[in-house]
């Protein structure tokens, strides 16, 4: 049954001669002056299941974009199923060869499953019109043949995450692709669903489908993949069967040699007295459970975890953007909490407003009576912040969207500091900024700490975690480990990825 479907689909090659589903040779890619991929050469044999791992910013997404034809390499060659890659604009040819199932939805929510499967290639009747009955029957037959259990008449908007993945996989196979890239497929799945997904992957592998599997959950990789390719800072640093790659070696490859030694941990101040922030038995929906910690004045604590681990939700609960059960308390009832959200473009900057207004938006009540804003007072406060943070801008009136990323991020840091907070909650505060700005931002944090603010850095970036006095790790909504000054990056990464028990058991 399976083979009949496979042979009826359009093939990229005339036979099954090609040994490699994917092969890249010295692929590089630069964005402006920054080179994000350097000479990456690797190949994936037909029927393999290959893990592609690397920390954030290692170049995984760029590599995926290149091998799926969304981006052209600056140099190098990509071969799919033994043939040179199609031209960048030839979307149909790419879709017949390779497909990526992203975390974001690419099914059209207002159409049925069957329509999504045959989007733009609907079976037609003699009059050239869409044959609705045939469409449904074909979809049902196809789904059944692959053991994909979804009702074809279901509206796509009503699919669960698991069903949506099935539809996207089915659509890719229908278009002829025998190379599937799964990008963090288990991020939103429950345990049972993950097992069903793995069964499906194994089943399809037997039919000759090749998988590239991207995941931060390393234990899953060992369960489902045969081999692994590791990227770090745009370089391919390891390429081996997983049998030859114990977990320690894999983490080591991801983190890099320099991190083998423990970092010089910052010297925090020992303080006694009431905690600046107390979190006790915090629960947020089904996402976060039993989270308790204290923050002392002048202390910097890291909260590390994967995307979806619940770490950001804890930050949102602390500043009152989210409902929760349990206790969140500052030392004094009126203590202000400064907040730098993740993703400055989406959630941080007010793009059309000036740098001065962006800095002071949370404290406008202090610039005059009855809500009026004295421009002089506002500018005085803003220019003091601009000076102390070293923000570079043409004038205080310049719209913040015209500043560089690093200066925008400093602006958001300034906004968090404008209210003279006792607690600072920073979510990935140096994401997407250059090295110099990163250092400057850390300097600002250290200064706030020295002035007595308690800092909570929510992140999975090792540089950001390195400035913390201690690091709590959250995995699937629960605090799993705490690291003090004596720690090394490998242990933190292992704990973030959920490997903690095996490593230390």
């Amino acid at each position, binding site marked *: 049954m399976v083979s009949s479907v496979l042979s009826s689909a359009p093939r990229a090659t005339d036979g099954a001669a090609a040994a490699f589903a994917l092969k890249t040779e010295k692929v590089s890619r630069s964005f402006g002056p920054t080179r994000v991929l350097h000479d990456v050469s690797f190949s994936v044999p037909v029927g393999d299941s290959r893990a592609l791992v690397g920390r954030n910013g290692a170049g995984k997404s760029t590599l995926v974009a290149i091998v799926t034809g969304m981006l052209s390499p600056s140099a190098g060659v990509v071969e799919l199923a033994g043939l040179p890659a199609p031209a960048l604009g030839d979307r149909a040819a790419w879709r017949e060869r390779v497909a990526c199932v992203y975390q974001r939805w690419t099914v059209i929510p207002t159409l049925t499953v069957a329509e999504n499967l045959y989007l733009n290639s609907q079976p037609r009747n003699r009059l050239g019109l869409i044959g609705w009955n045939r469409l449904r029957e074909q979809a049902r037959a196809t789904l059944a043949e692959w053991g994909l259990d979804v009702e074809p008449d279901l509206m796509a908007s009503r699919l669960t995450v698991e069903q949506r993945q099935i539809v996207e996989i089915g659509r890719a196979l229908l278009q002829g692709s025998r190379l599937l890239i799964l990008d963090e497929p288990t991020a939103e799945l429950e345990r049972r669903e993950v097992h069903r997904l793995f069964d499906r992957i194994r089943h399809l592998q037997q039919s000759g489908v090749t998988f590239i599997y991207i995941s931060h959950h390393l234990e899953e990789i060992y369960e489902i993949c045969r081999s692994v390719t590791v990227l770090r800072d745009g370089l391919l640093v390891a390429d081996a069967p997983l049998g030859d790659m114990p977990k320690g070696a894999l983490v080591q490859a991801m983190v890099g040699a320099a991190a083998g030694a423990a970092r010089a941990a910052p010297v925090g101040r020992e303080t006694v007295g009431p905690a600046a922030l107390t979190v006790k038995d915090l629960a947020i929906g089904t996402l976060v459970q039993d989270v308790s910690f204290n923050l002392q004045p002048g202390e910097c604590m890291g909260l590390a975890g994967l995307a979806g681990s619940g770490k950001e939700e804890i930050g949102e609960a602390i*500043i009152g953007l989210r409902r929760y059960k349990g206790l969140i308390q500052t030392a004094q009832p009126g203590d202000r909490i400064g907040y730098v959200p993740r993703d400055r473009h989406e959630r941080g900057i*007010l793009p059309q*407003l000036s740098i001065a207004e962006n800095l002071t938006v949370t404290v406008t009540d202090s610039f005059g009576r009855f809500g009026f*804003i004295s421009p002089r007072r506002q500018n005085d406060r803003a220019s003091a912040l601009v000076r102390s943070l070293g923000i570079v*801008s*043409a004038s205080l009136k310049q719209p913040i969207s015209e500043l560089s990323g690093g200066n925008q991020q400093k602006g958001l840091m300034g906004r968090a500091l404008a209210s003279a907070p006792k607690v600072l909650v920073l979510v990935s505060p140096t994401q997407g900024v250059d090295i110099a700005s990163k250092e400057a931002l850390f300097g600002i944090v250290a200064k706030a700490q020295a002035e007595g603010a308690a800092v909570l850095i929510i992140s999975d970036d090792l540089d950001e975690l390195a400035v913390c006095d201690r690091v709590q790790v959250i995995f699937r909504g629960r605090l799993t480990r705490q690291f003090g000054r004596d720690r090394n990056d490998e242990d933190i990464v292992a704990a973030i990825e959920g490997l903690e028990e095996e490593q230390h058991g």
Partner: protein
Amino acid sequence: MVDVAIAAPRGRGKSRAWVSRLQLRELVLLPVIILAMIAGAIVNPSFLTADNLINILQQCSELSILVIAESLILMCGMFDLSLESIVGFCPMLAAWLIVADTTEGGSGFGLNGFVAIALVLVAGAVIGAFNGFLVVRLKLNAFIATLAMLILLRGTTIGMTNGRTLFDLPPEFLYLGSATWFGIPVSIWIAGFLYLIFGLLLRYHRLGRALYAIGGNPEAARIAGIPVERITWGVFALAGLLAALAGLMLTGRIASVVASQGQNLIFYVFAAAVIGGISLNGGQGRLLGALTGVILLGILQNVLTLSQIAAFWIDAAYGAIILLSLIVTRFTGEAPRRA
């Protein structure tokens, strides 16, 4: 792009400071307005008389208040089509309750004129608040929800009096649209006063700045602690109140309420706001710019009438000129901000 660290934020040349404060965008329409005035002076010598110019201002005073209302809503990234129907409905409701003679289309109730004024304003605010409820709380699409409200109110306005026009309204009810202070119609004073007040509020008050923040990035505004829903809702209610006031002034000017009062006004409201630099995407624009948009439309209307173009063609000419000004502002308006 040249980055310069700030050394001294103040102390530039006075005139440069003014220009940069206005960011030029607000003055883009000035040349067009001057051109239209020259054209007017050529077409008809009576154009440049004080009487005619005051006449222009009075004629567009209602439109200008509606433009304030719509601009506030547009700034938070929202939309309200029903404002023009509030212009008709609220005065009609009050007039209907005032007129004692049922044979003339009244209710026979004989409402006091001052109470009626209050009723007009309250009704406008309530309708606006209800629009806010639909759009902010129920999260209905603003376009279709306020379109439905427009049709509903328009129909009710006609139904109330079987399509008749109501006359014989008490002088206090007509005062705002008919009286003059120091030789200038009260409606011009009111419009000017409102532009001043709302212009200052938008520039120098937390709530005004909150509108820009909400329109620019509602998610970031919410995270920064701005009560996005409450403010947006309030703006809808305020806009309804302003529209009702505009309706009251229009009624005063023509000393009656026509069943079609306010009809088609919304197109000119949008045209004036947009050529005046209010962004349909929210978060951008100033009332000063919107005011130049209103004045341009007012002058054009007047010039076209004076030039004795056949009435059938006035709307077409009007539309063409609005398009032209949009194109002009696109070319001249965006560039200076990058300086």
